């Protein structure tokens, strides 16, 4: 029952996601990331469906290369909540976006930004 409720809540949050708010939240990422080119972190265009650690020419942590993550709404949500916990050893040494609605907004923005 709890699992069903959690799933329904997650679906509800995703459905209400606001890419405009997500664009604002993306401002937090701008020290290291850009949509179209690699910086301290890899580019975000082409993220969905991409295997973690696979952008050619970008140097990833071993942890990310080994993670076997394929980026989608669910894996991004889990990672963004607490990157070092989701992938111990990641170079994304950032405590994360703890608010589920903010993560949903951010993911909605990333889906339509490129």
């Amino acid at each position, binding site marked *: 029952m709890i699992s069903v409720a959690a799933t329904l809540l997650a679906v509800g949050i995703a459905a209400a996601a606001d890419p405009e708010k997500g664009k604002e939240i993306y*401002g*937090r990422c701008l020290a290291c990331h850009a949509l179209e*080119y690699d910086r301290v972190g890899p580019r975000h265009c082409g993220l969905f469906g991409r295997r973690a650690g696979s952008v050619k020419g970008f140097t990833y942590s071993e942890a990310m290369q080994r993670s076997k993550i394929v980026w989608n709404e669910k894996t991004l949500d889990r990672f963004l909540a607490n990157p070092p916990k989701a992938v111990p050893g990641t*170079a994304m040494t*950032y*405590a994360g976006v703890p608010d589920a609605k903010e993560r949903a907004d951010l993911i909605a923005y990333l889906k339509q930004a490129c």
Partner: protein
Amino acid sequence: MSFLSIRTPAQARRLFLSRSGLALSGAAVALLAGRDALAAKSGDKSSDTNILNTALAAELEAIAAYQVGAESGLLQKPVLDLAVTFQGHHKQHAEVLAKTIQKLGGKAVAAKSKYTFPVEKLKSQADVLRFAAGLEQGAVSAYLGAVPLFGNRDLSKAAASILGDEAMHWAVLRQALGEAPVPSAFVS
């Protein structure tokens, strides 16, 4: 005060820093001071150096970004002076971070030979300021996200010191753009 009247090593260090142009914060000075406590404190050193290296990589990129802005020909005085001053702060951050990484037994990342910046979109002073403001906003968030991760709380304090500096950069750049310099009571 002259060097002849210095009574303690701490005094000498303060005087040296004040005269060498390294106007570092207390926390940053603590990083460089070689305190045994810093190296000896418990905590995951490899994790801390990992965090510091990510911060260092971002600082090195910020230095390069300000260089692009300064050489663009788009910045007029006094904005140009401001950009060079902020770049100088980032250089100091990078220096402190690199030395701390080495002190902790890690290997500091080096600056890339080439960085990618959206130079094609920088056509006016306002464009450069907006680009820099975005980097500074991101830096504030990045340090905010790093502060709670350090195993060594001295490093959290030092990162918070840098965060404060970059928040001031962000506010000044917003002011220069004619935007509300401090848009909210909290940063995130």
